[in-house]
């Protein structure tokens, strides 16, 4: 294992610089890597530049003014209606760009790695979330991939409630050690306590 073969995640918003922060916790396990993605993985983390990002359905001038059923995101911005949320639901969407990195902070410069996530709702669940949708994200040549978080709830009318969730990741089907703590609310989505 002479090469730096551990992964770390870093994430930034599309307009920002890469944020390279990693937590090093020894947790080696065998992976089925290929190319530069091989050997062992030790730890991953998703970090985000605090104070940036987050697209409010209510504040964007060019988009819909709220996330209400039937509204048309004419410029392509997702709404709770287009996302298939329950009738009358509102919520929040947040776009981030993630990057797959080795533990030393260098990017995994390989396109076509399939990143996939699983999100499990935990407690508290003040938004009444009962279903989660996740997807697959192919990396680009610099190891990055976009990710759009969303929540839509009928309880989002003046509610300050939140819902917690745990997000876990795989790369090409192999699990990563680090999981992310998500907190969904009607006006923010934080990832490991960061972002809005």
């Amino acid at each position, binding site marked *: 294992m002479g090469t730096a073969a551990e992964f770390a995640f870093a994430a930034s918003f599309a307009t920002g610089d890469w944020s390279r922060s990693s937590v090093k916790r020894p947790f080696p396990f065998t992976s089925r890597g290929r190319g530069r993605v091989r050997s062992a993985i030790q730890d991953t983390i998703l970090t985000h530049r605090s104070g940036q990002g987050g697209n409010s359905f209510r504040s964007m001038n060019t988009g819909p003014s709220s996330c209400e059923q039937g509204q048309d995101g004419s410029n392509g911005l997702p709404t709770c209606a287009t996302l298939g949320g329950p009738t009358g639901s509102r*919520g929040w969407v947040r776009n981030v760009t993630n990057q797959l990195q080795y533990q030393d902070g260098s990017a995994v410069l390989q396109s076509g790695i399939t990143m996939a996530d699983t999100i499990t709702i935990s407690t508290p669940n003040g938004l009444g*979330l009962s279903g989660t*949708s996740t*997807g697959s994200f192919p990396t680009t040549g610099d190891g990055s991939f976009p990710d759009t978080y969303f929540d839509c709830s009928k*309880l989002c009318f003046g509610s300050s409630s939140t819902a917690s969730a745990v997000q876990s990741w795989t790369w090409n089907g192999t699990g990563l050690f680090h999981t992310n703590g998500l907190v969904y609310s009607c006006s923010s989505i934080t990832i490991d306590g960061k972002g809005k």
Partner: protein
Amino acid sequence: MLRTFFIVLVFVRLVSASCQPNLNATVQTFTFSGGSRVDAILELGKQTNICFGLRNLPRSAFVEPASFRLKNQTARLIIDKIFDGERVDIKQMPEGLVYVSRPSKVSSLFDYKIAEFDIGRATLQTTSLGLKNRLVLQFVPGTQGIAGSYYSGDQTDLIGPFQEYQKTITELLTLIVSASKGATWISAIPDSAAVLPRTENLWVVIEYNRSMRDYRSLTEQIARNFPASEEPK
């Protein structure tokens, strides 16, 4: 005035659909290696901008290596050659998409009808997610909220709006993919497994805006997750 505007809107929507290929047009060169038949179809789709719907394919189509070096063949003939030996039906839908499916006697969620698919203009991937969530909500009507994360894809590939009633999942996927700049939808599990209570990860939509090689690990994963009972006989 309003009527004229509406007609213009309808016209724009019709002409913006890019999956109206001439399958009899000659493809000068089609070369493919290092992947499966599904990967070959994705390459052909990107090269010729033919949209595909791939449903209930045998596992072999995802896992067995294939290679092609064809010159001066029609797209139709290339498609036939890619699936040569596979028991699949191939037909071009009125929307333009080429639909490839293995016959099945099992009624699956791909045949399930969505009561109302009323969705605004959005990216192809967002619309696909909206369809998934509508399917879930139709089975759990009392749901108060949903959440998640997803790949929103090509931000310039906007489709819709759509207002459809009592259409099956297959019909709606055909509709939205046909309206895109170019993409393929693939059922990620065979029909026999696409039954309740499972409603997650039924399909993927792959857009043609980047190299199809980037999706080979994804198609490999689909193959790995195919139920063993679906091995070709």
